[in-house]
């Protein structure tokens, strides 16, 4: 028996918790560790375990703007977790392995570009930090991220919302019934990236059958079409029927078959809080599937508890959803042009962002320059209010990769003008081309 060359970065952070009884605590991957070690998965020829590296603050600031700074908002655990994702990705891009799984915590997919605190158990977006690292150090261009966590990957969506080179697909339990309450079909990307954000809100109770219908009829064809250099799976495991924080009905077999079909280059763990009944089996299934091995015997001992079958109404809803989103995908070029024409020189949105773990409310106004020659530049005015913290505000300019001379200059002028007005506490310019975050 020989696996396809496969790398595993296992980092359970056995000495780190958000708080002692928080779902994101030391115990979370204990039983997963037990199962992986007991199975002997790391003794299979072809499977190689990697140690996470310690990501640097610079790696993090390639994506995030922390207010007042990222350093004071994170712990070493976040740097190890992001470093774990980077280690997995490097093993793949260096062709030491065909694919890799960063089975690490803490998770990251709810962390947005601007960070005031922790939301949905996430402080920094470890996949986004990894993608930025790959683009900077390994010349990776087009990236697809498929988020299979039960919660909408709103952080990842936020970071890549204006980037047509990153396809973000998230299926999740409908936001009307679950945190973070977003991820609806009309969130499809800003005008120049319209269509490269695809949200698939699924009804509570969706089973393997419904999930695989979406996968076969939408996700896989869209991936084929997009032709990414690399496919990343944000591999949350809380769609499992036993998860205490959600209401879906996916099994370990359903997850393993998904991993087999998706053929992700890199998977990164996100949520999943059924730490005894689901995670040991789901992770074993994903590892075997990614390593090209037989996973047919990975079945939860309490599989009889898994709900079976979906209502006809639910099936019809999912079919409609897939049709609608596939239509949108196929007409994205036309829709993008229309949206750009409608917006004029700038596209703008206002949002409230809630940090549930930190008790912070952020109000954000994003303004994106729609430049005919480049990706434009982005300004973000961000104000936050929290219970125990002094209110914080920042004005941020982001100049993306491959920006034109004019946009670079206009972006810099914008932050200097704001600073002159002096309405905000902090001023930043993130120059992705120069790989620099400046505190003005």
């Amino acid at each position, binding site marked *: *028996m020989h696996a396809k060359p496969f790398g595993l*970065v*296992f*980092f*359970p*952070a*056995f*000495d*780190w918790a958000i708080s*002692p*009884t928080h779902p994101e*605590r*030391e*115990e979370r991957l*204990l*039983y997963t*560790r*037990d*199962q992986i*070690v*007991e*199975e*002997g*998965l*790391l*003794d*299979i020829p072809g499977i190689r*375990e*990697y*140690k*996470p590296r*310690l990501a640097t603050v610079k790696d993090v600031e390639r994506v995030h703007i922390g207010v007042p700074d990222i350093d004071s908002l994170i*712990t*070493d*655990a976040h740097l*190890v977790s992001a*470093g774990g994702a980077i280690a997995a990705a490097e093993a793949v891009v260096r062709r030491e392995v065909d694919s890799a799984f960063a089975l690490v915590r803490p998770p990251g997919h709810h962390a947005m570009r601007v960070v005031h605190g922790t939301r949905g158990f996430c402080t920094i977006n470890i996949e986004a930090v990894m993608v930025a690292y790959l683009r900077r150090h390994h010349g990776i261009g087009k990236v697809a991220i498929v988020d299979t966590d039960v919660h909408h990957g709103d952080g990842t969506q936020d970071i890549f919302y204006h980037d047509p080179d990153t396809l973000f697909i998230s299926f999740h339990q409908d936001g009307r019934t679950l945190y973070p309450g977003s991820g609806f079909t009309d969130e499809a990307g800003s005008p120049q990236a319209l269509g490269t954000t695809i949200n698939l809100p699924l009804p509570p109770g969706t089973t393997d059958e419904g999930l695989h219908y979406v996968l076969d009829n939408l996700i896989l064809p869209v991936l084929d079409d997009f032709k990414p250099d690399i496919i990343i799976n944000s591999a949350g495991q809380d769609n499992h029927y036993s998860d*205490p924080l959600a209401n879906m009905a996916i099994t370990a077999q359903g997850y393993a078959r998904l991993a087999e079909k998706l053929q992700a280059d890199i998977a990164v763990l996100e949520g999943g809080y059924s730490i*005894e009944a689901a995670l*040991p*089996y789901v992770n*074993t299934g994903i590892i*075997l599937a990614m390593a090209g*091995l*037989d*996973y*047919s*015997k*990975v*079945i*939860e*001992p*309490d599989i009889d508890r898994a709900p079976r079958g979906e209502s006809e109404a639910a099936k019809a809803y999912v079919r409609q959803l897939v049709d609608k989103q596939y239509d949108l995908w196929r007409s994205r070029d036309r829709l993008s042009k229309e949206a750009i024409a409608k917006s004029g020189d700038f596209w703008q949105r206002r949002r409230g962002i809630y940090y549930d773990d930190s008790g912070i409310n952020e109000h954000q106004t994003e303004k994106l320059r729609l430049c005919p020659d480049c990706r434009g530049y982005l300004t973000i005015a961000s104000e936050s209010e929290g219970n125990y913290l002094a209110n914080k505000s920042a004005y941020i300019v982001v100049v993306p990769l491959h920006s034109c001379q004019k946009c670079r200059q206009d972006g810099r002028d914008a932050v200097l003008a704001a600073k002159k007005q002096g309405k905000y506490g902090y001023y930043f310019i993130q120059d992705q081309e120069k790989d620099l975050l400046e505190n003005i």
Partner: protein
Amino acid sequence: MLLGIDVGGTFTDAVIIEEGRLLAQAKAPTLHHDLLDGVLAAMDQVLAGIDASRLARVALSTTIVTNALVEGKTERVGLLLLPGPGMDISALVPEKPYILSGYIDHRGRETAKPVGDEVARACLELNGTAVFAVAGKFAVRNPSHEKSVADWVRQQARPDFLTTGAAVSGELNFLRRANSAYFNSAVWRHFGRFAAAVRQAMIKRGINAPLYVLKADGGTMPLAAAESMPVEAVFTGPAASVLGVMSLAAPTGETVSLDIGGTTTDIALWRDGVPLVAGRGAKIAGYPTAVRSFWLQSVGVGGDSLVRREAGKLVVGPMRLGPAMAVGGPSPTVADAMIVAGLASFGDAVLAAQAMRQIADGDETPAQVAKNVLAVAADKIFAAIVQMIAERVAEPVYRVEDVVHGRPPNPGSVIGVGGAAAGLAPLVAERLGVSCIVPPEAAVANAIGAAVARPTLEVTLRVDTDQGYYTIAEMGLRESLPQKRFGLNDARELAGRHLAQRAAQAGISVTAVETVFAEEFNMVRGFTTTGKIITCRLQIKPGVFSATGSEGGV
């Protein structure tokens, strides 16, 4: 007075140690078809003129298990597995297994019962098989299924011998325990015959001293214990030499030890005076097992390594064509270079110089060639040490603290043993920029190690206060917890009591005990702490009875 015997690939060495002093040493050729012959020849030589009744212990490091595997002297094992849900390991074990129903989950809870009829059917099909191995997933958390199946097999098949997986190791890794249990049963009969012959030979010589066998982890076990756990006696040669280093040089800080023999150099890294243990068990016949061992790296450089020029460049090893030219060998070797460099004094110096001339570049003198040869050889060992340090640094860790504050190995000295140590170890030390020790008894470090190695024994305690029970896999125990409030310190104490009990059963005295693994987790269900999961593994520390040196107890 201690007698130590190490069966090596070419020679069997024997030593007698008295009060920390090397009293006598002897050497006899190893005969692979009859290991006992070499053992007895070396023993008789070393005991010449010595009153054998004064021996307090005889300890043997032998390749008998390895030989049994290489020479196919194993027997068919009925392998019964209870894998439950998970990976199909049928293709990863040495024999086609019988897969049985029944499952114990990660918490040691029964989620499916084993089925007696399946065992009966397997026994029927295995008619004629005399030895069995039974292994269940998570049996270390609850050995009851392995026990039931073992009982059924005993009733049905009346086997001569049976091994259960949890008895061979208390550590997680079902695949490795299954393989260990298989090999333990496969070599049981062959080892038993050898043990009986050794016993008989001792009686014939009037030796009443207790007999011990060295284990791969550097400890010893009474011969009687080895007869039921022969798999532990695999790969003891390198362990013997590491123990020899401990006895001869008593390293304290960070060190690298080299056992430089005829064709290979075995490298071990030491921290705080203790050799590092391999993260996972040894491989036997290519199969991963749960047999614990020191972490050693072997590189193909030794005294007899062939030296030649390839594309103008000096190349050393890994092959050996014969002994040094100085003693009549066919081609230049590292030992010839050592003789010319004045680092060894055996054989014909003229022939050694001739060997160097054969591989000279232009008008290089033999002395210059010898110096270059030794530099190339030392460089190969140095590179292997650097590689080993890199591997250690890359070893996965599971705590933030260990990633952030992990410290790479930084050996402060080199200790060389083995026949070719005097010539090469100082050069390796020079490359590392550290000091070097080559004890005068370096050539018989292996047999000394066997002579003075202390017995070791371990227990793995796992506590689940939420369910109110604990297990000790190696002892097949699953008991109720004495109290609900239970911490890591209570666990250490409880494990210590069981270790003492296990040692008493095995006839081993408890000396220094160390915790080799400990972890403690709070269990939280629905935002309340419901209990603790504690694992702690204690062992009687591997070590030596006494320091050994020619000047007496150092």
